[in-house]
């Protein structure tokens, strides 16, 4: 199982990678001890988006399908969680049922949409356009659900104002009060989930499944001739990636106890693409690190001006495409490797995959 973590499809297979990894992990785990509660809650909020970025990295970087629809699944799961949590009440345990329902909704939506696109052989650009229109349809639909007739059970959708006051995630705990996941508890929940998802994705990507989806991205026809049912692999990738976007949606809704159609629409849909393109879509670690850095930087800028942040986001995307098409984090990694590469040529033989694969993914 552990050799899968260090496979050819992911960067960072040597001790040089794992030592800092453990250091970063320790810093992340100790962070709440040194920061005040507000900052920790804020950090938890930032980290909720990372799942969406990793899902997009899987679908786009590894699967070769550029999905604009990440916020579609984000919205479906976010609203799904809201509706379920309001209807079940906030009692301990039921919120995790709501979480499960929300993730299933996102996965089911991905399966249906994915079926139509993948079995219809909607490739390349068209994939992006269909997922984008799905996203805009959802935002458009949610935006006009202001009237009282738009309700599911006791949950009102409230149009542009969005849903509010659903219970945050909580579980039964010692004593009488349940453990509510907000602040520090939410932070640890999110960090734990990120660790699990990240390591899980690494193992998946280096397993047979991961190698096949990379083969499909490189040359679908060849993969098909080798006897793989390309469509099933693509659909599975798409569903997993979309469910991760759904997980982001649930955590976001639980974090702020609100969700609005604005988190589904066009500017929101641009965000995951910017994070992943900037970081480097070819590698899951690059996406994780880069997305966090971008989110963190923009959190700081947004405090001053929302519009300026979006302006900068656009500039960053443009700059990435023109200057470093494979992403800045991967660019930095390669520069570092070139510096130290000469000393350990033998151990680096697996390394070029992510970068060479990048070149071809663009073609």
């Amino acid at each position, binding site marked *: 199982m552990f050799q899968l973590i260090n496979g050819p499809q992911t960067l960072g297979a040597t001790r040089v990678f794992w030592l800092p990894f453990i250091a970063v992990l320790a810093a992340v785990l100790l962070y709440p001890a040194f920061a005040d509660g507000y900052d920790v809650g804020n950090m938890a909020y930032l980290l909720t988006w990372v799942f969406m970025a990793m899902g997009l990295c899987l679908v786009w970087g590894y699967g070769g399908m550029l999905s604009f629809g990440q916020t579609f699944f984000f919205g479906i799961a976010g609203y799904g969680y809201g509706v379920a949590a309001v209807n079940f009440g906030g009692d301990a345990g039921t919120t995790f049922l709501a979480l499960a329902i929300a993730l299933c909704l996102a996965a089911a939506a991905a399966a249906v949409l994915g079926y*139509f696109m993948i*079995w219809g052989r*909607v490739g*390349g650009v068209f994939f992006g356009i269909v997922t984008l229109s799905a996203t*805009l349809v959802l935002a458009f639909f949610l935006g006009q659900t202001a009237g009282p007739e738009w309700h599911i059970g006791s949950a009102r959708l409230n149009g542009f104002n969005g849903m509010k006051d659903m219970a945050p995630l909580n579980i039964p705990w010692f004593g009488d009060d349940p453990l509510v996941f907000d602040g520090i508890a939410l932070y640890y929940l999110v960090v734990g989930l990120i660790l699990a998802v990240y390591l899980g994705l690494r193992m998946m990507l280096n397993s047979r499944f991961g190698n096949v989806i990379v083969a499909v991205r490189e040359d679908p026809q060849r993969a098909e001739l080798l006897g793989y049912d390309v469509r099933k692999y693509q659909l599975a990738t798409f569903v997993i990636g979309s469910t991760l976007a759904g997980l982001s949606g649930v955590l976001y809704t639980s974090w702020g106890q609100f969700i609005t159609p604005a988190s589904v629409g066009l500017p929101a849909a641009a965000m995951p693409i910017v994070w992943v393109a900037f970081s480097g879509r070819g590698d899951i670690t690059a996406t994780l690190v880069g997305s966090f850095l971008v989110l963190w930087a923009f959190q700081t800028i947004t405090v001053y001006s929302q519009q300026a942040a979006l*302006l900068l986001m656009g500039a960053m*995307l443009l700059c990435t495409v023109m200057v470093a098409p494979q992403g800045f984090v991967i660019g930095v990694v390669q520069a570092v490797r070139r510096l130290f590469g000469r000393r350990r040529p033998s151990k680096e033989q697996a390394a070029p995959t992510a970068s060479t694969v990048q070149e071809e993914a663009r073609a």
Partner: protein
Amino acid sequence: MFAEIFSFFYQFADVFAFLILSAAGLAIVFGMMGVINMAHGEFIMCGAYVTVGLVHAGFPLPLAQLCGTLAAGLIGVAVEWSLVRKLYKRPLDSLLATWGLSLIVTQGMLLVFGSTLTGVGTPEGSFVVGDYTFSVYRMVLFAAAVAVLGGIYFIFMRTRFGVHARATMQNASIAQATGVRVGRVYALSFGIGAALAGLCGALYAPTMTLIPTMGAAFLVEAFVTVVVGGANVLLGTAPAGILLAVIRTGLNGWGGQIVGQIGMLLAVIVVIRILPEGVSGWLARKTR
């Protein structure tokens, strides 16, 4: 009875004009050139803003619309020259770059001009059929959509530039070898596409609220029409426009605007499942 039929046709014409005018520019840039232009909506916005700005400055509406079209076209040539030119072999990157451009323009406009611009009001004029009253301007839009289709046909099938353009899109290196100035053809084609987007914005400027994000309203309609139309612009865009307009008009009449909008996009997903190459691919196979 005649009035009802005309009313349906009127609504159909309205939707058809909107789809065709949104899509015409994109059909050239995306359908022919293969550049995924996510900034298409911003060219539309540019046409609309220039038009409204000039009307406020005292220009007559048609002249302002012409200027709006030209302004979008010129900006289109500049964008092609500075950005898109480098991305012809990387279609997905052209998508990202133009999307970045779109974000910059939208947010920049928001910062510079604020959230809304005072509109100019739809030109008056209406006519009566049976018990119903119809706006003349909507018919003007329909006529403009048909004229745009005719214009594209004329430019690309009946002029020297059109021959060069089609040759370049087919195979740029061979076209270049035979003496076509490929760079200029690309820039001009992109410019025409942008100008058509600007025309769309100019024509719709009097009918809608002008906000910096207005381009998004057109973008999806445009892409959907071009995607359903398929690769061949001349054969695909018009039939796709008709097909989608019929679906949408029918659904509008049955369940209102929202059902129409959502139903049309769902229909698109089904159409793509059945006709992966779009209407033009299907027509090409039928007529072969």
